[in-house]
């Protein structure tokens, strides 16, 4: 099974703060994804990437930037965090030619 790790696992910041969430996958998957999960909304796609240097816009991108620095690493950036971004964030990866995604353990972000 694919190994996807996320850090930090928990983060508290204040409104207007800068936050970077990290994701690493060690199975050389091509695709990586960032989701947020909120009660009543399920999983919503923020950004995704199909390789180093590539970025695709997801369904709820406002207020988020992302960068894929290597095949393994995908970062989510909140440059001016707002309380509405308090959520549980999941990273996922999948390989070319398959459709199933493998999820990391999640990062719980609280913006005060």
């Amino acid at each position, binding site marked *: 099974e694919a190994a996807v790790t996320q850090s930090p696992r928990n983060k508290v910041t204040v409104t207007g703060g800068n936050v970077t969430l990290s994701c690493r996958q060690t199975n050389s998957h091509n695709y990586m994804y960032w989701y947020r999960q909120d009660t009543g909304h399920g*999983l919503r796609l923020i950004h995704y990437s199909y390789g180093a240097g590539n970025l695709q816009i997801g369904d709820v991108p406002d207020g988020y930037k992302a960068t894929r620095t290597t095949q393994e690493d995908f970062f989510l950036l909140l440059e001016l965090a707002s309380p509405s971004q308090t959520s549980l964030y999941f990273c996922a990866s999948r390989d070319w030619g398959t459709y*199933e995604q493998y999820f990391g353990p999640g990062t719980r972000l609280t913006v005060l």
Partner: protein
Amino acid sequence: GDSVTQTEGLVTLTKGLPVMLNCTYQTTYSPFLFWYVQHLNEAPKLLLKSSTDNKRTEHQGFYATLHKSSSSFHLQKSSVQLSDSALYFCALSATSSGQKLVFGQGTILKVYL
């Protein structure tokens, strides 16, 4: 665009009873359907997948059959256990959704003694 509908937000059952969680989808292309399960404070994990019409797929006592005629992929189990209590997501991948999974809203299953 593509969509997935899970009609039940919460299903509560007594241990040992059968369960069916509904999933219907909309797409104009040939679909790949998934069920993911998420236990409390854990990541979603793949439970079942299928792209074959009218073929039952099974894993860990759960089963589902993709019916393209009715655009459905309902999840079933004949006898639920306490450990089945979790959040279940149905998801769709199709050419029209690009490289994304389209998720339903999720169904919480709670199993009691």
